[in-house]
């Protein structure tokens, strides 16, 4: 049985814009899939559908339509790391990480001491251990991204959806996030992330889906998909794929 599959998925916004057209993907458990494309390609829409936030009957997890899963059940299977979080109140890092335990709580419950241990561990894993009582409003952009990942780790889900995880980060923080996500992938998490950065996609992913104008231009193992011709078509600009010191570079 396929772990996660998308079968001829089309989506049209109420305004009439076709965001996705007959997209078919099959994602293996434990893989790391990059959804690569330029702005407006339909990446975020696809991520919303994979999250279940935008309803669709074309996505199947363990062979069962995503729409048939209960809300909490789905929360235990799929976690989201948004591009940006809305921090209107000065929660502590521990408070925010504990939010990740919500799918495990009873309808009117609040986190237990066991949940707090999981949250402490998640914060330590992303390198924010010791700062549990710090306010989220005092974090830098890179630290905020780490915190979002910590909350998703505390959620203990099988799948991690990440929306442009490094789009607004400097090179040092980009590297930090990349290392952390590689570690999570090595530990068996299934990563599905959107990005318009082809080099980041190549570094982190095992498979790449190329999305252009809502259509799938190519999908497969990254070595098979990342070709100069395909990327040039994807971005409507000349791109070259080359190897320097054993590393694939796209420029």
């Amino acid at each position: 049985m396929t772990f996660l599959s998308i079968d001829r998925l089309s989506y049209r916004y109420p305004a009439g814009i076709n965001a996705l057209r007959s997209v078919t993907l099959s994602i293996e458990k434990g893989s790391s899939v990059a959804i690569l494309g330029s702005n407006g390609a339909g990446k975020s829409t696809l991520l919303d559908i994979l999250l279940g936030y935008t309803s669709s009957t074309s996505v199947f997890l363990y062979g069962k339509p995503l729409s048939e899963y209960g809300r909490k059940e789905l929360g235990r299977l799929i976690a989201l790391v948004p591009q940006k979080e809305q921090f209107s109140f000065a929660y502590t890092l521990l408070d925010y990480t504990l939010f990740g335990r919500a799918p495990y709580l009873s309808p009117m419950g609040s986190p237990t001491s066991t949940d707090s241990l999981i949250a402490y561990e998640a914060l330590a894993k992303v390198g924010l251990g010791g700062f549990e009582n710090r306010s989220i409003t005092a974090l830098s952009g890179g630290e905020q991204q780490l915190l979002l990942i910590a909350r998703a780790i505390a959620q203990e889900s099988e799948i991690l959806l990440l929306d442009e995880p490094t789009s607004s980060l400097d090179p040092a923080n980009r590297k930090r996030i990349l290392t952390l996500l590689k570690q999570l992938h090595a530990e068996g998490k299934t990563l599905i992330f959107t990005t318009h950065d082809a080099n980041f996609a190549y570094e982190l992913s095992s498979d790449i889906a190329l999305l252009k104008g809502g259509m799938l231009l190519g999908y497969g193992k990254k070595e098979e998909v990342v070709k100069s011709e395909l990327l040039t078509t994807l971005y409507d600009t000349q791109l070259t794929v080359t190897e320097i010191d054993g590393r694939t570079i796209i420029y």
Partner: protein
Amino acid sequence: MNEYEIQKRYKMITLLVLIALSVIFGILSLFVGRYPKAGFTPLSLFYTDSVARTILIKIRLPRVVLALAAGAMLGASGFTFQLLFSNPLVEPGFLGISQGAAFGAALMIVFASTSSLAVQISAMVFGLLGLFFSYFLSTRFRFGGALLRLVLAGIAVSAFFSSGLGVIKLVAEPTKDLQDITFWMMGGLWNASWVSIIPILAVIAIALTILYVNRFTLNLLSINEKTSFSLGLNPKRQRIMLLIAATVGTTFTISVTGLIGWVGLITPHIARKTFGSEATHALPASMIMGSFFLLLCDSFGRTILPTEIPIGLLTSLFGALIFVIILSSKSQEGKA
């Protein structure tokens, strides 16, 4: 026991201390009034004077109970509104509720009856209509997200009711009706009697229970909607349910107390400053602080001068002072 559990226990103890203080202050305020003379009524008098006993049981006790319940409701609904709208400057009268209730009260006073019950029912009905119109208008707006549309609709509905209220005040009989309207808009607990407050207490108890048991969910509704969805919530449905609980509770409260400003704005701020932003302890803290604040203002208002000072004036005065102090304090930098 890890640090989280220690903090949790410390916050719980602090909450219990606050509850005990509110109850003690509530009991003390039963002995404060203007019978037989302004100030503290000696305990012995209640054994010997039947009038004093009647005043204690039929006037002061329901009034103190109403102050505690109304303060808790305003504190809880202010906290809830701020989290649901992800905005620490929102207060319960945000969706046309307060202005709707004021319009309803004025309408009844001028055109029908000045009886307390009639004014309360009219205020309640128009307060709820304010919410209904705000929600209805927000579904018709073609601008911004759902929350922004609701806020803008609330502003528009408040403005409609305000102008309607202005017209009513223009035609009101100046020596009687206009004074009644003005007093209602300044708020007061002098209408409190067991008959008038028992139905209100039942509604407040239900609303507070709904908000209290969902306090962890409230946190999740203050962040990115997609994140809260990914955490197993149904954000739209749960937001509406909590919004209705907070609004109905507030409307029923102000129908009997008149307009009481600032409680719902400042007590959540003080609660968050004392207990942290996470709602598990900050929400009950906001409720208790609301109770304490309203009781304090009411006791002050009914004893300090020969004539009673409307409670709304005192909550505005003290509330604004506290608000300025909170926002000016160094430790508030970068916090909400």
